[in-house]
């Protein structure tokens, strides 16, 4: 039995490829498996080609990538269009539509001859049992359920429910198509060791969602009652979820006329005292930066989510990249600091979004959440989250005494000044993008500007010691340290597990707070290792370079970085780990370099 199963399905748009993947991962989640599903489309709005990748395992799935255990091609032209996204190896079980007329020993797969190939009359079975080609995807899930033993009962119940509205005949037809898939699999068995093992003992039902919906749900939990934004791939689902939900909580979603108006309305709602959020991606983030500066100087809380995609400019809207970190850290002109947080998975998105609201409210600042296309749109099983452990922070309001002599931007010891809002008697003040004194009055005084700048930086000092926003995994004594963030941290985690299985000693630092750079955390980490490697999905390796602005990173800390849409694979990281181990062994007689030259 296998502990880990990767399925890739491709076909024409309208073949129901993604819907098939969703049925499978839903059934798996109900049974207690862990899983991640990603989908990919051609650039057409409708039609064109569609594919999904599904990775199911008995242990937590850290990363959706890897060569396919099963490849399903509803037609070969569309399958081939996905190239590296659906890598077939000789061990891959290939299942394809007989209608394609391709002989099993003449598959159009360059340089690969899969050992197990099934040519299945998928559309013929669909027509025969359900009376329509549309049931092809139902046959496919029947085949996969049959071979790998996933969710037969729940999928059958799901099919009956899904088609119930279309009449008993349609529902039963689809149920028969599913059954036919099961029977075909039964008649053409695969080897026992290829089947997926049962979920780990006590495997319980998981939550199942994607990063965008998780982000939106976390915002509701955090008490957000205002969202304004502009549709942009791949972040739009955040607005769509909130539009379905936020009104029920007395909140409002405004689809703004442009990205600037979107964050502008959020700045206004925050000034009016509400927890507010916007979400965008690449080009939209570029447009929003002036407003981020305004919110920083007016010290107004807000959360701005940037679902990163390939850039610059329009770039690659449907592909993940980690290339907006510099922009997040240095967004808007002037001397300024805005906290930047990044989730590493769909599950992580919940706590990171709640933390973003808490930091925004506490420090009266915009907070940027750097998601990425992969986290935002992949479906992932998530362990149930105990929301009772989260504390929600509200902005510091002025007391009656403070209102008697109210100074909105009072230079306090912490740098945090009590904030009023319209409607609060005695709290009147002028908020402004222009530099101001403690009362909020415009000033051109260099001395006041210096003091206000210092206040606006000083208030963040405690943030750099938030070690709970960093995770260190692996062997704490290991001489080799990896650093990775965002969705790529999952790749690094998987590589770490592979390394441990080989007996290599390594550890991994995953920052969820990317900016301000927490100098003590990195200094301690690099002081404890002799070799290091940043792993990032961007051409420049932006975290590596950002950290080096603030921390004297030892010379033996290197970078594995690559542009988006070419995912870094765990085995590549493993290869680098092996090289580092060898280098250390070859080096043990030499004097060790001082790990931190601080």
């Amino acid at each position, binding site marked *: 039995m296998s502990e880990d199963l990767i399925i890739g399905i491709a076909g024409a748009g309208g073949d129901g490829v993604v819907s098939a993947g969703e*049925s499978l991962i839903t*059934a798996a989640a*109900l049974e207690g498996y862990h899983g991640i599903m990603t989908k990919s489309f051609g650039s057409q709005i409708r039609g064109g080609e569609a594919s999904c990748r599904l990775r199911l395992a008995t242990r937590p799935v850290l990363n959706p990538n890897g060569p396919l255990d099963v490849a399903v091609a509803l037609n070969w032209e569309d399958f081939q269009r996905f190239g590296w996204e659906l890598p077939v190896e000789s061990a891959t079980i290939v299942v394809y539509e007989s209608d394609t007329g391709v002989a099993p020993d003449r598959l159009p797969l360059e340089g690969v001859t899969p050992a197990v190939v099934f040519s299945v009359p998928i559309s013929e079975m669909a027509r025969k049992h359900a009376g329509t080609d549309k049931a092809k995807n139902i046959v496919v899930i029947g085949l996969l359920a049959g071979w790998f033993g996933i969710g037969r009962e*729940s999928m059958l119940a799901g099919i009956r*429910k899904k088609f119930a509205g279309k009449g008993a005949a349609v529902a039963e037809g689809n149920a028969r198509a599913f059954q036919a898939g099961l029977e075909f699999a039964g008649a053409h068995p695969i080897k026992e060791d290829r089947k997926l093992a049962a979920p780990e003992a006590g495997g319980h039902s*998981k*939550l*199942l*969602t994607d990063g965008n*919906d*998780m982000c939106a*749900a976390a915002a*509701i*939990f955090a*008490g957000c009652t205002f969202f*304004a934004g502009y549709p942009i791939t791949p972040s739009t689902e955040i607005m769509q979820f909130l539009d379905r939900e936020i*009104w*029920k*909580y*007395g909140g*409002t979603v*405004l689809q*703004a*006329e442009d990205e*600037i*108006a*979107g964050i*502008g*309305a*959020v700045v*206004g*709602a*925050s*000034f*009016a*005292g*509400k927890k*507010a959020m916007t979400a965008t991606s690449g080009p939209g983030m570029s447009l929003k930066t002036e*407003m981020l*500066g*305004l919110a920083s100087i*007016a010290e107004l809380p807000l959360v701005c989510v940037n679902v990163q995609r390939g850039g610059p400019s329009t770039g690659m809207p449907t592909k993940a990249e980690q290339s907006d970190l510099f922009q997040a850290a240095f967004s808007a002109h002037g001397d300024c600091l805005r906290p930047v947080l990044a989730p590493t998975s769909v599950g992580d998105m919940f706590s990171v979004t709640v933390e973003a609201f808490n930091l925004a409210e506490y420090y009266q600042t915009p907070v940027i959440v750097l998601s990425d296309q992969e986290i935002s749109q992949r479906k992932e099983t*998530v362990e*149930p*989250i105990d929301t009772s452990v989260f504390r929600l922070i509200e902005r510091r309001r002025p007391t009656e005494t403070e209102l008697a002599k109210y100074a909105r931007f009072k230079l306090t010891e912490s740098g945090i000044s009590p904030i*009023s*809002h*319209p*409607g*609060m*008697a005695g*709290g*009147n*003040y*002028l*908020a*402004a*993008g222009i530099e101001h004194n403690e009362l909020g*009055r*415009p000033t051109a005084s260099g001395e006041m500007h210096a003091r206000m700048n210092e206040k606006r930086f000083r208030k963040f000092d405690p943030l750099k010691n938030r070690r709970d926003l960093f995770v260190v995994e692996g062997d704490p004594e290991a001489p080799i340290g990896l650093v990775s963030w965002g969705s790529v941290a999952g790749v690094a985690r998987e590589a770490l597990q592979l390394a441990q299985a080989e007996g290599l000693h390594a550890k991994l630092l995953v920052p969820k707070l990317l900016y301000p750079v927490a100098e003590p955390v990195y200094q301690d980490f690099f002081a404890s290792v002799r070799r290091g490697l940043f792993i990032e999905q961007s051409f420049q390796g932006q975290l590596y370079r950002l950290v080096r602005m603030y921390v004297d990173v030892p010379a033996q800390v290197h970078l594995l970085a690559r542009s988006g849409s070419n995912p870094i694979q765990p085995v590549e990281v493993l290869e680098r780990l092996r090289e580092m181990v060898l280098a250390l062994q070859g080096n043990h007689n030499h004097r060790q370099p001082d790990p931190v030259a601080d």
Partner: protein
Amino acid sequence: MMTTLEPIPAGKYQPGDFKSDLKPIWCPGCGDFGVLTAITRALAAIGRPPHEIAFVSGIGCSSRIPGYTNAYGFNTVHGRALPIAQGIKLANPGLLVLVASGDGDGFSIGGGHVAHVVRRNIALTYIVMDNQIYGLTKGQLSPTSRRGRKTVTSNFGSLEDPVNPLLYVMGYGASFVAQGSPADMGGLARIIEEGIRFPGFAFINIQSPCMTYGEEEQQIKAQKAMMQSLEALGHDPANRALATERAGEYGTRLYTGILYRNPKPPPTYGQGVAERHVALRKQAVPRHEILNRFMPEN
């Protein structure tokens, strides 16, 4: 801390109650002084307490005005007062929201937002101080400068026709469109008050002369000579066709008063929001149970 919506007895506030103690940076004789006075008179007549008023502006000479008003002020960035003001109004519909802008802030850099606040009909009062010039940056061409106008950025004369703010806003479908001038202080205060009382988005264009960079025919003296009161003309503000025709005369005639007041204004955005809140409230699960949405179901 709550926003009260109870009517305030008339005469409770004086215009002076709405003046802040900041000294304006405007040039002596600037039309904006008159606009400030008219706004404070209108606010006194309305009678809402200063802390229930949000006064939002962008950047420019005119956009300094919230600082000189006793209210919650927000002097934001260039061209973006309208989106910010809409966020404020939607977040707290009980507030009285005023927006101040100029011809450059409102119809050049921020011009794209006007159509959208109009079609949403968000109940705020948009006051544009139109002086046909960029004053704060010292005399460059503005979107309402006339063709042929010579400025430091149009040394050989402007090659562009001006924007017609009245016609634009009429064209977008606004339900309240008025024009005033500090040359008629009483009339100006009245139309601002009417605009604030109007149940929906209200636009008031004010011919507020720039003493320093403005042309002779834009100054108070010239305005007094050419001003035509719409009321005196017997203009019917419910007549949209006539209002549109007279809006078209912007730049050639100076009408003051209420050009158009929709007798049957569409519902405001806020009304729609309030109704939706009532309709959907019962469907809310407790916030801490929101993740139950993600329980799988085949």
